[in-house]
């Protein structure tokens, strides 16, 4: 069943107003900075946070609509939630944690235990069925939390930062497992994360949430091809400029002029990939290239490439090879020329 959630709620100074829609079998990633209201969206859908205005429906069923005074309490909603930190009940064994949902929904104990045993088997933790959560590793706890959420056979799965509590090495393994389980789940899934890698690996669609509003939404490919806000650009590690276009020229808000490969008009966003920028000690004598004069403000070594932060008429990040860094002899505070081919700049309406 399709989840359709129109959520308007004020929490302290945060005013949230957004709409999300997820079809069955689809995974939607809610991506945003801390304090954007991501968890609140999940709580509203789960019925833990009543909304002020809006309407949340699952298929034909209305879960929350203040204007019609409809509010289905959390225990009556067909949702499974994997909480941040997992929140496994510390006093119950792994099996009893997973059997909790079916038991609470009135399934007789023997049957609930059978269901729990099946899920323990499915997530590969049979040997830990009688353990208490305190004895589990982060990855094991995550799998128990997922099994517990799915054991009630929900139509909607909500994941709040499912991988944030894990260390880097476990994260990759758990992410792969999670991907398999999500593929086997035929309901709608909403996942909150602040890690674009999670979204990339697990989600079909992504909604970018900033200060309570959706600033961008679409498939992963759409969002990565045309980021619309500085936050998304930073997540992707690309340069995003905003300006006013006229023909092949865009006057960037900071004052510089950028030449684009195709004609544009009106408010325009310019995507400059760091790898498309070349650095030179002197100005090049070539047209059809954008050239700017900069000061190097920072140099970060990242494996096989170097990110150079540049400050000038615009602020950019360039990506070069360690060899190029050595040849240019770049150090912080040094003046440098940067050039980008006009055709390497993606320009699209703001």
């Amino acid at each position, binding site marked *: 069943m399709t989840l359709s959630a129109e959520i308007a709620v004020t929490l302290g100074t945060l005013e949230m107003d957004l709409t999300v829609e997820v079809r069955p079998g689809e995974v939607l990633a809610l991506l945003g900075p801390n304090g954007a209201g991501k968890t609140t969206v999940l*709580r509203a859908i*789960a*019925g*833990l946070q009543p909304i002020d205005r809006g309407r949340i429906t699952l298929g034909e069923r209305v879960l929350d609509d203040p204007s019609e005074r409809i509010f289905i*309490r*959390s*225990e*009556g*909603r067909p*949702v*499974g*939630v994997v*909480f941040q*930190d997992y*929140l496994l*009940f*510390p*006093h119950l064994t792994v099996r009893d944690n997973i059997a*909790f*949902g079916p038991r*609470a*929904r009135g399934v007789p104990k023997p049957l609930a235990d059978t269901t729990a045993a099946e899920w323990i088997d499915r997530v590969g933790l049979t040997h830990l069925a009688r353990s208490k959560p305190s004895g589990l590793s982060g990855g094991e706890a995550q799998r128990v939390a997922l099994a*517990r*959420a799915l054991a*009630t056979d929900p139509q909607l799965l909500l994941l709040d930062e499912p991988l944030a509590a894990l260390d880097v090495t476990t994260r990759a393994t758990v992410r792969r497992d999670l991907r398999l389980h999500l593929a086997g789940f035929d309901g709608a899934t909403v996942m909150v994360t602040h890690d674009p890698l999670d979204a990339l690996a697990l989600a079909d669609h992504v909604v970018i949430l900033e200060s309570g509003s959706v600033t961008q939404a679409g498939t992963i490919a759409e969002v990565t091809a045309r980021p619309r806000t500085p936050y998304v650009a930073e997540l992707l590690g690309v340069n995003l400029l905003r300006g006013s276009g006229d023909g092949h020229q865009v006057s960037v808000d900071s004052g510089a002029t950028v030449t684009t490969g195709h004609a544009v008009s009106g408010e325009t966003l310019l995507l400059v990939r760091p790898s498309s920028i070349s650095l030179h000690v002197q100005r090049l004598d070539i047209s059809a290239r954008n050239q700017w004069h900069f000061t190097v403000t920072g140099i970060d070594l990242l494996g096989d490439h170097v990110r150079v932060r540049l400050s000038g008429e615009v602020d950019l990040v360039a990506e070069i090879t360690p060899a190029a860094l050595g040849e240019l002899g770049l150090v912080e505070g040094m003046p440098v020329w940067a050039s980008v081919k006009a055709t390497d700049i993606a320009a699209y309406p703001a």
Partner: protein
Amino acid sequence: MISSRRPPLVVVAAATVAVLFFVLPLVGLIRRTAWSTLLDDLTTTDSITALRLSLVCSLSATALSVAFGMPLAWILARVSFPGRALVRGLVLLPLVLPPVVGGVALLTAFSRRGIVGEYLYDWFGIQLTFTTAGAILAETFVALPFFVITVEAGLRSMDRRYEDAATTLGAKPFTVFRRVTLPLIAPAVVAGAVLSWARALGEFGATITFAGNIIGRTQTLPLAVYLQLEANPDVAIALSLVLLAVSLTVIVSLRDRWLGTS
């Protein structure tokens, strides 16, 4: 951090006086105990009666404190309503109110001429004053606050997101309470029950004022101690020793909760 410098002598002296002030009465009590006749003193008919009655009354008061204190603690911790601060203050009142005043207040409410007591007697023939039920009522009055504040603190400090998790799994409010909240706050519930029991066991002023001092009906241990002190000091001291032992046990059993592990 604890300062490694030597503390001033005056401070050490004053602190030592304070410690002695606590220790000397205990030493005195133990020194005055007639150890050779201790068992006989504790097994006189009056002693046995008082011991048994105290046990019945204090356990009943604890049971009442749990039964009524749990919902009250839950409401104070979880429900926001106008006058909540006032209700909390009322609950705390018996902690600081002189017990004898509590006894007088109970009389005005539950004696045969009290606000409620009058109707209890006229309609149901129930009389609380000078009965064991009255002694239990008086003990509950002073014991209940200990249970309520301990459990309320437990409820406030627990991570409520566990309750959210239980709710999303389909648990109705009472199931959430029984299967998640209660096990998580179990240490606070046990501590609260032990504290209120110890308080009920030692109650004197409210009991003697409201329920009187009738052997076998309202004469609990503290009352027996007080009465025997003139006639039979050895028995009074033996019974005092029992109460002291109970208090020590309570302190020791709750030490992790209060004194930390350092």
